[in-house]
Structure formats: C-alpha cells, structure tokens
C-alpha cells in the first residue's frame, strides 16, 4: 500500500498546485459580460471590474488619433447618435484592430470604465473574424422556404 500512498501524495500535490494556479488565473483575468445599458446603470461598481461589452459600432464614429482609436457602441445595430443607450470607447491596445472592425460591425470591447464615463478598451474583437454564417432569421427549422438571409 505504501507505493499507493506515495503516489497519492504526489497526485494531491500536483492537483493542489494546479488548483492554486487556476484560482490565481481566474482572479487575474475574470471579466464580466455586460450589456451597454447595464454598464450605464452600474454606477460606481462598473469602475472597479474588468468588463466585456458587446455592441454595434455607430456609423461614422470610428476616429483614429495616432495610436488610439475611438468609437461609439450601441445596444442594437443601425442606431444613430440620438440613441441614448450608447457607450463611448477608446482603444489604445497594441494589437491591430481586426479587419472585420468597421461601421455597424458587432464588436466586443474588453476593458474598464473610466471616471468620465468613457470606456477604456484594452482589447477589441469584431464578431465576424471567421463569420461562417449570417444569423438565422427567426426560426429556420420551421419552414425551409423562409431561410432568406439578409
């Protein structure tokens, strides 16, 4: 039995170390998914945490200023400036913005909300990097004849 005890002890140590690493990893990199309207309602709490915000890029809002890029996200696609549920974002990360990042694209911004209400993104993903599909319109399983895609 001795061998099995030794073996068990080593296994326990390995699993312990990995669990410790995992806990550290979670604390370090956890990011809350939030809708734009939730971010605007979160108040002070929003400023402490890393957030990931999903939205649609406002037409014509992308402005490059040297190394940083600013733009505006909306909850729903195709909204213009008058839509109140909007979030101004400044991106100044190292990686280039993806090619799919453009007007009206669906984008994911990771970062923190600044005191001034501007979202400082450290990472921006545009949701079509390998867009294999258009979003199905309603229920595609009901009637094959309405599978038209926009």
């Amino acid at each position, binding site marked *: 039995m001795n061998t099995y005890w030794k073996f068990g002890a080593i296994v326990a140590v390995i699993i312990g170390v990995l669990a410790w690493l995992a806990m550290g990893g979670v604390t370090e990199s956890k990011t809350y*998914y939030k809708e734009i309207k939730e971010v605007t309602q979160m108040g002070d709490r929003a400023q402490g945490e890393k957030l990931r915000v999903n939205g649609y890029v406002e037409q014509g809002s992308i*402005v490059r200023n040297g190394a940083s890029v600013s733009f505006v996200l909306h909850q729903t696609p195709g909204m213009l400036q008058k839509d109140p549920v909007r979030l101004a974002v400044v991106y100044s990360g190292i990686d280039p913005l993806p090619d799919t990042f453009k007007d009206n694209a669906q984008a994911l911004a990771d970062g923190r909300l600044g005191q001034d209400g501007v979202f400082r993104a450290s990472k921006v993903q545009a949701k079509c990097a390998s867009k294999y599909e*258009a979003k199905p319109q309603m229920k595609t399983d009901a009637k094959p004849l309405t599978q038209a*895609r926009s």
Partner: protein
Amino acid sequence: MENIGALSILLAFCFAVYAVVASVTGRLKKNSFLIVSGQRAVYSVWLLLTVAAGLLIYSLLTGDFRLAYVAAHTDSSMKTIYKFTAWWGGQEGSLLLWSWLLATYSAVVVFMNRRKFRDMMPWVTSVLMVTETFFLSLIAFVLSPFGILEAGRGNIVEGVGQGLNPLLQYWTMVIHPPMLYLGYVGFTVPFAFAMGSLITKQPGDAWIHTTRRWTIVTWLFQSAGILLGQGWAYAVLGWGGYWAWDPVENASLLPWITATAFLHSVMMQEKKGMMKVWNMVLISGTFFLCIFGTFLTRSGVVSSVHAFAQSPIGKYFVMFLAVGIAATVILILERLKYLKSEARLESVVSRESSFMFNNLILVASCFAVLWGTMFPVISEAVTGEKISVDAPFFNRINIPIGLALIFLTGVGPLIAWRRSSLESLKRAFLIPTLAGVALMVVLAILGAYEHPYALVSFGLCMFVTATVLIEFWKGASAIRAKNGIGFIPAAIELTHRNTRRYGGYLVHMGIVFMFIGYTGAAFNQDVTKEVAPGGSTAVGHYDLKIANVESGENDTYAWQRLAVNVSRNGSSLGMLYPERRLYKASQQPTSEVSIRRRLNEDFYINFAGLSADNKRAVIQAYVFPLVSWIWIGFWVLAFGTIVCLIPNKVRLSYARTQVVGVAEKHATVEN
C-alpha cells in the same frame, strides 16, 4: 435536383436507423441474414450521402443561387477551389461533411472487419450508425443543406451570392476544417469498438489492437487540423498570433489532449494489463469531447471570435451528449468486473507511474481548458453573472503543465518498468541533465534569465533531445558493431525493428521542436507606427523604409500595396510587400501580411490601414523568434507518426512475463 439531394439524406437517415435495428436484432436473435443486411445498409448510407454531397458540390460549382446555402456561401467571382470548399463553409454543409465522413469511415470499418469479430461487429455497427442517425436527423429535419430561397423574396441579387469570408480564402483554410473533421469523426470508430467489447463482455484488449492504427491516424489528422489553424491565424489575421485560447480553438484542443493521453495509456494495458477502466473512460471522453467540440462551434453557446451562428441545433446536441454519456457511464459501471487490472503499481519511480503522471497532467490540462472555456456558462448558472476568463488564465495553468509534460517526455521512455534503481537513473539521465543545465546556464548569461519559464523550457527541450539522441545512438551503435554498416543505415534498421518505439521518439522530437517555437514567443518584439511614403522606422535590429505605395483592383477585390525596404545593421535584406484588400462582394477589408521567414526568427509586416488624414500608412512590424520551429516540429511529428504506422520488420510479441499467472487467465479472446 435539390429534391434528389434532400431525398438522399432522408433515405440515408432511414437506412441508418434500419442498420441499427437490423444489427441489434440480428445479433440478439443470432440471425446472420439480418446482421449482413445491417452491414449492407451501412454501404447504402454511404452511397446515398455521396450522392447528396455530390449534388451539393455540383450546385456550388455551377452557382445555383436558388439554393440558400449556395447563395450564402459562394459568389460567381470566386475561384473554383473556394467554391468547392464552401461545402464546409457553413453550418448545413459542414454537418453534411461530418455525416459523409462518418459514413465513409463506417463503410470502411464494416468492410475491413466483415469476416472478423462476429460477436462484436453488430454492436460496433450500431454504435456507429446511432451517431450517424443523430447527425442525419439534423440535416434531414432541422438544417437542410438543400433549402431553396423563397422566390421573389430572396434579398440576394440573382447570380451573385454573398461569397465566402475573404479571411477564409487562404490555402490552409482549404484543408483545415476537413482535417479537423477527419480527426473528430475518426474517434467514433475506436469508441464504437470499445463499446462493442464492453457490451459483449470481452475482457481483453482486442479492441485496442484493432483500433490502434486507426487511433494513430485519427490523432495525426487532428494534430494537422490544429496546426493548420495555427498556421492560418499566424499568416492571415495580421497580429502574428497562432493561439488565443478562443473557445473554438479550445474545442479542437480538448479531444486532442484526451486522445494523446489515450495513446500513451493503451501501452499500459497492452504491456501490463493495467488501466483498463481508465482507457475506456479516455476513449469515451475523447469521443464525447469531439461531439462537444462540434456542438461548441456549431451552436454559439459560448461567444467566440469565430462567431459561428446562433443556431437551433444546440439543444439536440445537448440531448445526444446527455443520453450518450449516461449510457456509456452505465455500461462501464455494469462491466467493471471485466476490466480488472492484471498488475499492481510497484514503485513511484517506474515507467508505470510516469505514464500515470503523464495521463494525470494531460487530463488536468483538459479539465482546466474545458473549465475555462465553459466559465461564462458555469458562472452564469451559479452566480447569475456571466464572467469569462481569457488567455492569462489558460497560460498560467498550461505553461507549467506543458513544462511538466515535456519533462516526462524525456523521462518516461527511459525509466524501467516496475521499478528503477538510483544507479540506472543516473546512468540514463546524467548526460541529458548536464546538457540541459549547461544550456540554461549559457542562456541565462546571455540574458534570458528575465524569462524564467522560457529558460526552463529551453533546458527541458535540450534534456529531451539528448535522451532521444542517446537512445538512437545506443541502438544504432549496437547494430553497427554487429552488422558492420554505416551509422545512418543502422539507425534506419533500428527504427524498422521497432517502429512504434522509435517513431514515438520522433514524435517526441516534433513536440520538442514545437515547444522551442512556442517558447520563442517570450522574446517577441513589435512596433506600431504611422509612416509616410519615403519614411522609415525600426524594430529590434531591423530597419524598414517605405519605398512606394501601389494600388489597383481586379474582379474580386481592390488592393493597395506597400513596397518596404528591409535592412539589418545597414545591409539590405530585400523587399517585403504587405497589402490591404477590399473584397467587393462582402465589402470586407483584409490585410495580407508579408513575412520574411527564417529559422532563427520571422520578420513580419502588417499594413494595418491609413492614418486619419490618409497620408501615412499604419505599419505594424514584428519580430517573432523561432516561430518556424512550430511548423518544422509539426512535419517531424507527422513523419514520426507515419513511422509508427509501418509494421515492424520482425513481429514483436509482448509477452507479459512479469505478471506471472494472471495474464494466462485473462488471455485475449480474439486477436
């Protein structure tokens, strides 16, 4: 025509159901006519699906834009090869590809074993066909690849189509999805044999012997699929990364990890009769992770940069997984008494325990990746808040795991079975350890001490390389002394005598090369600059100067190209031509990076866009040390895997002599 396609799929579905019913009843009632008819149904499924796939390909190639699938995934200006690859460019088509591949594999399995395993084969057939039925039910009733756009309502201009995403129009993307699918689908076969042997209460490892080659080939396909994906990301996405721990990437990695663990732990069962339950768990886990991976990429349950569609098929996958896993667990528990271990672990320092640690660490890594991937779903279920974890989480866990694995890669093959004495350990590992430590000292002096993980990684890579070289050197020297032939022929002779062992060493070397490449990432350098034509910038020891800007257009896209003069320490290295394109059909801009690939480092330029005033080009330049070794490592790995598949010159028999008495009692039933 689309009617014939849809009808073929429907008929294939019926035949698959029939094959299950006929095989099971035939087996239970001992009616060999029914069993044979079940097998013929398998061939029919393949034939019908080949017809359906052929029709879909024909529609894609001829541009039949009445079909929703064709209109959504091709346009008339695309190259023929990309029209063909649109087969797996979308949801419906890739499910058809899955079904067709599984039908092909099933037909091959049924044909190859038509006179073997009379007991087991009907069950194997039915497990395969149950899986087939599931996928066929999706394309027959939920997502038909042959749906027609409603006349007059289609908002797509007749004869044009929306085209394939231009980012996917790249050579590795042509073969990456089918390679991964060949891997995903292939694991159904060993799983089916495992279940067959459980159902028929076969205690031995006939199923492992039969499916060994199959598993290795499938594993190779999957490795190739993952590596092609990395190669594509590196050369196309413009930031030089090859792995981002994205859910879809993780989905392809998970079954690869468990399959790797399986390939190692089957040796324990073959040689020592140990870990029988564990092997069942691993192969089932691999199969369900393959299904789970398909589910993850095809259902949109976790948000991903790959952004596959939200789709209605998620719930069917969940049901299939739930039922399948439950049935497998019950079956394994029910048959536990046939899976008793024939030997005991004798020492912590032994080949056995190194295999166990290898398995433990691989499975821990798999679990960590799975946990991280599903974290948003889990946290939402538990706390109500959707929380994701990203790259730092995965790296924190997997870098130490990777280092531990590479260490075991060196240790495992040389440590003795049962138990190892200190003396033999010293003999085997003295030189490799010294070599590894020496390299670490040299690198630390050269300045690598800032990256401790990288330093350890290089040291371990050296250690493993030394163990492998010594193995080849020892074996080949013996043969050379005996036969009086040169060193290289002796090494080849050695490999031919035990292809699995020496092929395995080659695979390990491939992994070492890949680790060298991954480790190089610790020393990446980059710069982002707006540069006017005629201007220049620098990164690392490279200087670059924009010579001129050209532009033009063709049928598919408009392009703009920089001619960049690259030099190092004043001596010119030639020109690089990064390019930006705007694809017309999709209005999608893309970057075509330009890379100077060398063994020591790659120099990589991305033309990221124009500055706000349109006068300067935004350039991103990177130095990626050692990255080529990832691709070299893959070729070595592939070569080693193929060597493993070559039969030994003289058939080796693994007598389980150490386990006196037990092996005879549990001798394999069929072989």
